[in-house]
């Protein structure tokens, strides 16, 4: 007999303060885009994610022709051919143009990275991948069923990776290309060499048990980084080609010959980009020739004129500069599988152009807003093609183009400016997921700027995320100490990806003879290395002596400990954790080395200081800062809550033995597994007939001290874990010869990783989602209010890690009105002053989310903050939807 839990009966309550009653409360502020952009937005809403084979076809064809060529030059030629053959498409109403592929939401597979996952699922290659434990993450991921996701094949459209639609007639070509990369892709070649690592067998078992979610070398080798638009803005495309010419003359024939191949590769690719831009200009002229409406015709011709100019020259005005920035943003996205390619502090980069145009009366606030909204649509249209596990399980379909506002200037003053005020305004009028905003909070920022940030947060889309400038600078100065980062450079940082603190540099942009120091990224991708370790699953292995109890397979060698004390449990955990990091560091280093050889980054390298100076690409340490490999974790709060429960219940109070706890865990405390019920939050689980047998133990587990309540018992364990984690990462050395460091973002992995983990000692049930972020409490367990949660969250020094993440859900009524806004800012400031690195909010009535789950059609535009990013509700997987609903809602008090 099973019985359905109703909401009141659940062991956790998701409210702090009054449980809202009466009508569902809508978000307080709602604005509309300009008519031009609203049309584009509606077009977007009605567009499905679409894949194209055009780019990989031309890439592969040219690649094959150049057998024997120097690899980086061969790749540059292949990319050049692909860019030159990319069909241009301009959509009605656009004033910023160009995209990854001809479709509005277009992208394409990159078989040179990995060809296995889009091969026919019953094919031999797929089975081989399965055997190597690579597909496990895909198998446990649920993809959002709505919005632009193509989850099932329809008519002549085939669904691939659970998200993208591909025209049926292109499928044979895709398979044909894929076969050409068999045994040659980064994935396959890397796999061949990673097996040389001692303990490789353990790595396969770790991947199969989903203790680690992904290899980073061939899934998303770039991203989680900040773009640098300095060179195109300062020199123009032709100008950079001239630099390459000069450099080739200086280096040809001298030792360190890799440099000339790099410069040659950059030169070739820039030629490809020039043709690509020209093709768009041609398309604009063609569109103009068809257009009847005089003003639209004028716009097309204007686009053509602008693109023609930018083929060779530097920007003349704000509109030019924005278009040029976008050209290079897309160019980099087309070069590699990338998520989290962030524009950085764009409002500061473009300010000199904007200010001049405004001063000269060439631009108005209204026109600026229209351009910024158009830019938002372009960023929102970006799709990232990867496997279902990556796109759904990690990214929730998001591409993390993080735009930062605020922070400090090179000389340490507030960097906030009026263009950034308009950027925030455009994020309210055109509330699409991208670019997501982060506000780099510093005490020096002006109050009206901060209030604008609050106003934007209150619209409920989850941005800006509030991040702590000083904590980030502390982290950077420590992390890049050896590479010589100074105070001024530390101020040039921004967020790359969803929450990765990324190193930047100040570059001297000359506009009208005046030098402006603009910030931009100067390090390769962060968040490569050891990606998403499921801490509760490692603890599970400790309790079951190295086994994945779900499958019965052995993951780790037996630790052979009797586990007679808490200390033994903790020591065994550290042992397994360390061995996991060790083997994954080595195998990922190999994959990334192979990536750098087969598929090196050329455009991105060219943009990043100081690759053009050194003549080395980013995979060969060409950039200024290179300590970028990290270890990412997931489920830290569940780990610590479980340790607290074991320590207290088993070893101190002796309420039950460890063996009994293990039985309870296997019995899932008398509940049906989440996979059977399809509900992934603790509050909606279904009891089975043995519920009463385990009730007392489950209650004791739930009642054990929980993180988020300012309880020193568990907070001290949390702190011990944090300090251990950051210290132990330093013991492992990346491909670039630098120590690894700790990074704490769960993105969406807390869903799928929770799905394969048994019940945990903190009372969480089998298959349910872990706590999100890194310092968010487990939903419903933070019973002592926001201030207690803030205290717990700041019990350790956040600058030990690249980030920390606190997600809160606030009912709109709690921060309503002008006074509500002021108090909200005080609350945000207080957390950051206490040393918190990041806080973000969902300002939403949970009942609205439940309604949206039931009636997705009514909520096409509803967005929520997940963990470091904002996404359309209907495009989220159910695991994540359930978790967001379950989060404690801070309502009116």
């Amino acid at each position, binding site marked *: 007999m099973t019985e359905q839990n*109703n909401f*009141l*009966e659940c*062991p956790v309550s998701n409210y702090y*303060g*009054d*449980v809202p*009653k009466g009508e569902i409360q809508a978000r307080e502020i709602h604005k509309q885009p300009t008519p031009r952009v609203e049309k584009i937005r509606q077009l977007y809403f009605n567009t499905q994610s679409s894949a194209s084979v055009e780019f990989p076809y031309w890439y592969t064809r040219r690649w094959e022709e150049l057998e024997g060529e120097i690899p980086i030059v061969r790749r540059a030629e292949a990319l050049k051919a692909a860019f030159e053959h990319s069909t241009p498409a301009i959509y009605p109403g656009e004033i910023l143009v160009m995209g990854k592929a001809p479709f509005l939401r277009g992208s394409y597979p990159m078989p040179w990275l990995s060809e296995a996952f889009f091969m026919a699922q019953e094919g031999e290659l797929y089975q081989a991948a399965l055997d190597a434990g690579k597909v496990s993450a895909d198998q446990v991921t649920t993809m959002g069923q709505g919005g632009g996701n193509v989850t099932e094949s329809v008519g002549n459209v085939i669904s691939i990776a659970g998200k993208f639609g591909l025209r049926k007639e292109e499928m044979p070509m895709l398979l044909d290309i894929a076969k050409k990369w068999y045994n040659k892709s980064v994935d396959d070649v890397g796999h061949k060499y990673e097996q040389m690592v001692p303990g490789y067998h353990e790595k396969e078992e770790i991947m199969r048990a989903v203790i680690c979610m992904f290899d980073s070398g061939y899934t998303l080798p770039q991203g989680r980084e900040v773009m640098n638009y300095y060179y195109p803005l300062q020199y123009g495309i032709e100008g950079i080609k001239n630099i390459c010419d000069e450099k080739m003359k200086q280096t040809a024939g001298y030792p360190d010959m890799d440099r000339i191949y790099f410069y040659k590769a950059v030169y070739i690719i820039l030629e490809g980009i020039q043709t690509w831009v020209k093709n768009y200009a041609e398309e604009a002229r063609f569109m103009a020739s068809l257009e009847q409406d005089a003003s639209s015709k004028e716009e097309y011709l204007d686009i053509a004129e602008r693109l023609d100019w930018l083929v060779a020259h530097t920007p003349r005005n704000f509109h030019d500069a924005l278009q040029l920035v976008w050209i290079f943003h897309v160019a980099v996205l087309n070069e590699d599988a990338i998520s989290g390619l962030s524009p950085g502090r764009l409002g500061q980069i473009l300010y000199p152009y904007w200010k001049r145009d405004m001063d000269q009366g060439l631009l108005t606030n209204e026109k600026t807003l229209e351009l910024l909204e158009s830019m938002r649509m372009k960023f929102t249209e970006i799709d990232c093609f990867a496997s279902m596990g990556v796109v759904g399980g990690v990214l929730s379909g998001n591409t993390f183009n993080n735009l930062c506002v605020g922070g400090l200037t090179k000389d340490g003053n507030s960097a906030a400016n009026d263009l950034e005020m308009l950027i925030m305004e455009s994020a309210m009028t055109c509330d699409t997921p991208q670019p997501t905003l982060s506000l780099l909070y510093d005490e020096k920022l002006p109050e009206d700027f901060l209030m604008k940030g609050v106003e934007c947060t209150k619209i409920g889309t989850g941005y800006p995320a509030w991040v702590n400038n000083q904590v980030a600078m502390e982290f950077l100065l420590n992390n890049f100490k050896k590479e010589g980062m100074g105070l001024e450079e530390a101020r040039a940082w921004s967020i790359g990806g969803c929450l990765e603190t990324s190193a930047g540099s100040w570059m001297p942009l000359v506009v009208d003879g005046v030098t402006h120091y603009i910030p931009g990224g100067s390090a390769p991708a962060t968040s490569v290395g050891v990606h998403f370790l499921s801490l509760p699953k490692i603890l599970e292995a400790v309790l079951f002596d190295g086994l994945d109890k779900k499958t019965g397979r052995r993951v780790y060698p037996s630790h052979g400990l009797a586990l007679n004390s808490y200390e033994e449990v903790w020591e065994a955990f550290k042992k397994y954790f360390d061995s996991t990091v060790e083997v994954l560091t080595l195998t990922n280093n190999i994959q990334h080395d192979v990536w750098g050889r087969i598929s090196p980054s050329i455009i991105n390298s060219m943009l990043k200081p100081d690759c053009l100076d050194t003549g080395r690409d980013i995979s060969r340490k060409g950039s200024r800062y290179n300590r970028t490999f990290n270890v990412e974790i997931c489920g830290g709060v569940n780990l610590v809550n479980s340790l607290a429960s074991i320590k207290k219940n088993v070893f101190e109070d002796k309420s039950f033995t460890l063996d009994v706890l293990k039985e309870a865990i296997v019995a899932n405390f008398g509940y049906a597994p989440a996979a059977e019920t399809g509900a992934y939050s603790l509050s909606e689980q279904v009891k089975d007939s043995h519920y*009463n047998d385990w*009730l*007392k133990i489950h*209650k004791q587990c739930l009642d054990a001290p929980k993180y988020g309540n*300012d309880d020193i018992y568990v907070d001290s364990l949390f702190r011990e874990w944090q300090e251990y984690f950051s210290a132990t990462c330093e013991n492992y050395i990346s491909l670039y010869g630098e120590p690894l460091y700790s990074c704490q973002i769960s993105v969406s992995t807390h869903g799928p990783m929770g799905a394969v983990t048994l019940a945990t000692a903190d009372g969480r049930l089998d298959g349910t989602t872990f706590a999100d972020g890194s310092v968010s409490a487990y939903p419903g367990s933070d019973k*002592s*209010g*926001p*201030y*207690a949660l*803030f*205290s717990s969250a700041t019990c350790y020094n956040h600058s030990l890690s690249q980030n920390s993440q606190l997600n809160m859900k606030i009912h709109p*009524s*709690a*921060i*309503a*009105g002008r*006074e*509500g806004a002021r*108090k909200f*800012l*005080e*609350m945000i*400031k*207080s*957390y950051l*002053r*206490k040393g918190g690195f990041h806080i973000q909010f969902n300002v939403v009535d949970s009942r609205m989310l439940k309604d949206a789950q039931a009636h997705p059609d009514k909520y096409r535009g509803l967005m929520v903050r997940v963990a470091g990013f904002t996404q359309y509700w209907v495009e989220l997987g159910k695991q994540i939807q359930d978790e967001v609903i379950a989060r404690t809602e*801070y309502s*009116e*008090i």
Partner: protein
Amino acid sequence: MELASQIPGTIFDVQGFSVHDGPGARSLIFLKGCTLNCFWCSNPEGIGIKNVPLYYASNCIDCGKCMDNCPVGAIRITREGHFIDRSLCMDCTDHQCVVECYTDALRFSGRKTTVDELYKVIQRDRPFWGSGGGITLTGGEPLFQIDFARAILEKCYDAYIHTAIETCGNVPWKNFEKVIEFLDWIFFDLKQMDTELHKGGTGASNEVITDNVMKLSGKFNGRVIFRLPLIPGFNDSDENFERIAALILKTKWREINILPLHHLGREKYESLGREYKGLSYPIPSKDKLLEVKSVFESKGITCYIGHETPF
């Protein structure tokens, strides 16, 4: 005499990020015990000073552990449900029934604390209020446990924390005298000016209350905001508004905050096994609230409705 820091008190909640009970973001401290017994009270568990079991039927699985552990046999479980004969457990202090309940169906209505312990929580919260925040003592009647209240307020005031109370006013004047020097702000309830009606709705006469208002006006230099819980059918007559306004105009303060009746306390009454008379009174209409506002404003008294306050 015991040390001020060790003075015990009984509270039933501390809530952070309270944004409607004083300036800024505040920590709200709920003290148990009240001298009135208003039929609409939204915190009925705070009326009695004693710690009693609250019973939430929706969490109960009828395991019977509470019944087995009650030394006086006050709990009966029948086909019709779960009954607590509260007259039998008036003197109980350890409440094994609550301790043994695994499902949180039985909970305590309050908890013992000390000035020191509570002050630790206040210190923890303080950095998070931001500018303009502080503490507000509410309840219950915050001046009922007067020694405890005084010690807390004094400690906070000395530490430059903004202090407020939300009082029903029905306490001896000497209680006010003990705390006013440590107070920045008072929310003072005025419910019904007719003595007999007041007695009917709250269980006590209003003479002490009106008397305290006038004394306060002479002695207290902080800000006072009067509060009128608006219960249609009980205190929404024009005459009542006129008389309240007249009293306010005799003081040096000119602000009133109307708190419209709501029915959110229903579950709490059920958990106490008490009848909720407030349920039979309607929630005031928006028009009515605007009407009340105009009555007060026409007399020069600034009137705020519900949470729409400028602080």
